[in-house]
């Protein structure tokens, strides 16, 4: 259909240049200026009141106190710390405790959440019902309740150190905490590091060779078995020749205390386990959502090709589910990091707990809150960036989403 000449000429004419001062623009600019003024005024008065109130109690905002002696002890520390150290150092101790709790909780909750998430989609009725019950109960309880219930149960219900329970694998559990077997390397740490590096490189090279071979011939050679076997042989040889001394330090009762192994306090164990099972219930639901988002036909096609159910899950379903899982999982991780701050409820010295004690001692809430908020923002932004990178990295090739 041909357009009439007049229509063409109207279309060809360049659109009129918008006037610089339309009513709409002026109004918008006025509104924005007003809002900016209100915000600035509110900030100014808040700042003015804070300084006046602080001056009334004889202090001014000043970060100099951070170098002064803190004078209080913490429940546990990853770096050397005594009450004689500075406030800056005790805040660092708190931050490291927060990061330790976050990292271990992240690992455990992901493992449990993945397992429960797969269980939610199981064909086994009993497994499905049990995992559904777990998810529904844990998701609908406040995390503080779970933490406190477990903590009090542990403090009250666990035996004294001399009657500690022995768990499978040689770990000990008593009312002073959990004692785990821990690897010890008194001799040959450098050699061990070298072996690990060589092993990692060798595994990557072998994995590429396997992939190339599969691409060329369609035959898949074993990957995990030779890799692990190689590592075991290398470690055994190193241990036998005496180049490396790697053994497990087992916790054992000696006198009035348990020595050896790694000691996790009751506070840490209660927080770690309860936050992990709490977040695992949320992660499980995310994983389930990812799995069911994969088209059923994919599974059937894979089964028709002769893949076993485990491989269908690992090679076909999970790689596609990851795409759906990663964004909400990232949010969940950010929540998890923030949720470690309920550590204060059981007296674990995390960043917020240390801050609270410091505020009560120094009456410097503004400086300390600013430090803590800054640290949390930094940790969260770093994590978000890492998750973003991961989301981009796991995006399947040739998909437009």
């Amino acid at each position, binding site marked *: 259909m041909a357009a009439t000449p007049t229509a063409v000429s109207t279309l060809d004419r360049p659109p009129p240049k918008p006037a610089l001062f339309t009513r709409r623009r002026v109004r918008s600019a006025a509104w924005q200026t007003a809002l900016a003024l209100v915000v600035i005024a509110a900030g100014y008065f808040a700042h003015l009141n804070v300084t006046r109130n602080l001056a009334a109690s004889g202090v001014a905002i000043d970060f100099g106190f951070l170098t002064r002696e803190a004078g209080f002890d913490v429940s546990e520390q990853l770096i050397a710390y005594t009450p004689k150290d500075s406030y800056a150092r005790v805040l660092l101790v708190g931050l490291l405790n927060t990061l330790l709790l976050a990292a271990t909780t992240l690992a455990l909750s992901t493992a449990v959440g993945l397992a429960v998430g797969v269980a939610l989609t199981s064909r086994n009725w009993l497994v499905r019902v049990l995992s559904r019950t777990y998810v529904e109960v844990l998701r609908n309880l406040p995390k503080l309740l779970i933490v406190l219930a477990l903590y009090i149960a542990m403090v009250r219900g666990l035996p004294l150190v001399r009657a500690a329970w022995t768990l499978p694998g040689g770990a000990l559990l008593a009312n002073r905490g959990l004692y785990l077997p821990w690897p010890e390397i008194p001799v040959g740490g450098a050699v061990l590091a070298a072996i690990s590096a060589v092993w990692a490189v060798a595994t990557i090279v072998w994995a590429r060779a396997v992939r190339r071979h599969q691409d060329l011939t369609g035959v898949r050679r074993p990957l995990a078995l030779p890799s692990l076997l190689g590592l075991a042989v290398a470690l055994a040889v190193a241990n036998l020749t005496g180049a490396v001394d790697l053994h497990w330090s087992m916790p054992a009762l000696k006198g009035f205390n348990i020595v050896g192994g790694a000691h996790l306090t009751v506070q840490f164990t209660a927080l770690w386990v309860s936050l992990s099972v709490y977040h695992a219930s949320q992660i499980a639901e995310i994983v389930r959502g990812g799995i069911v988002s994969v088209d059923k036909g994919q599974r059937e096609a894979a089964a028709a090709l002769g893949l076993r159910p485990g491989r269908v899950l690992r090679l076909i379903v999970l790689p596609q589910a990851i795409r759906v899982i990663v964004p909400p999982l990232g949010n969940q991780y950010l929540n998890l990091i923030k949720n470690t*701050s309920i550590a204060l409820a059981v007296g674990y010295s995390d960043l917020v707990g240390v801050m609270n004690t410091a505020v009560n001692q120094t009456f410097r809430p503004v400086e300390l809150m600013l430090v803590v908020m800054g640290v*949390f923002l930094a940790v969260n932004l770093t994590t978000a960036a890492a998750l973003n990178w991961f989301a981009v990295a796991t995006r399947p090739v040739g998909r437009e989403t």
Partner: protein
Amino acid sequence: MNVVDPDRRPRRPRRVVAWEWARANLFDGPVNTVLTLATTAFLVWAIPIAVRWLIVDAVGFTGDVAACKAASGACWAFLRVKGDVILTGTYPFDERWRAQAAAVVTMVTVVAALFWRGGFVSLAGLFLAGCLADLALLSGGVFGLTPVDATRWNGLPLVLFLSVFTMALALPIGVVLALARKSRAVVVRAVAIAWIEAIRGIPMVAVLFAGVFILPLMMPPGQHVSSMISIFVVLTIFHAAYFAEDVRSGLDDFDRGQIEAAYSIGLTHWRTLRLVVLPQALRTALPALTNSIIGGFKDTSLVAIVGLFDLMATSRLATADVEWQAYSLEANIVVGLFYLVTCIGVSERFRRLAEIAPER
């Protein structure tokens, strides 16, 4: 092809059906058989222990301390004796009915809101009425009620009051923030982004501490602000940021063509927003909002960390009595059941709302 009429199909004996169901759902291959046996073993081990502790060896509601000390199971008599403390904490003993009534008022408000058929303005009126009734009951000083200090508002009425009314106030603020974040005006957008991202970047416990430590300092000198008000304010600020993100997810999915269509039939900017955009965007955002609301309700218990007495703190108060020290688990179970029932109930209702909302 031989099609069997379902009505004419010969009925198979029930036992065969059960066996076939079990084969298909429990013993479907070696892996599933092992799983079934393992979970069954776990249940056979765990259920008797739970039943023994909860019922068989437990002391009933009418028992006493001596019976509880002698028994190896749960002590439900604890709840009879200490139920008041768990529910209302240190609220003056003779005035407890007011705290209980306040809790009931809040619950009625929530239920009424969940089944509300009126418009937005009347809904806001409902929440305002509920809030004022609660305040009158809890604080007293009006209608001849004895004044009660805010530090003694404990337990259930406190948790319900703080969670319900902060979130009711935060929801419209969150909608405004979400719209502001999408605004073309730079200043408006910057303020919204700063609010949302700063709050979402820090933990709720830190936000509550800011309410207790910083907010009172921001008041003009000599002006006292109770920690109840501070917590109310920071909780509202906190929830609004999360709601804003949920609403934004609804706005992001919104089809721009509808806005253009609304403009072209002559709707104003404001009416387009109110009649076209928000109803649909909020519906899309409903699942995310439900999650935030449930999460916000559960997290209100964190006020215990900054010294307000939520249900966990009043439970501790109840077990502070040496006689009844050993029964915190019973208190935890009851509080946990309360949260389970309310959270599941509310999320089910929201799920229904999302379903019955007309699809266009």
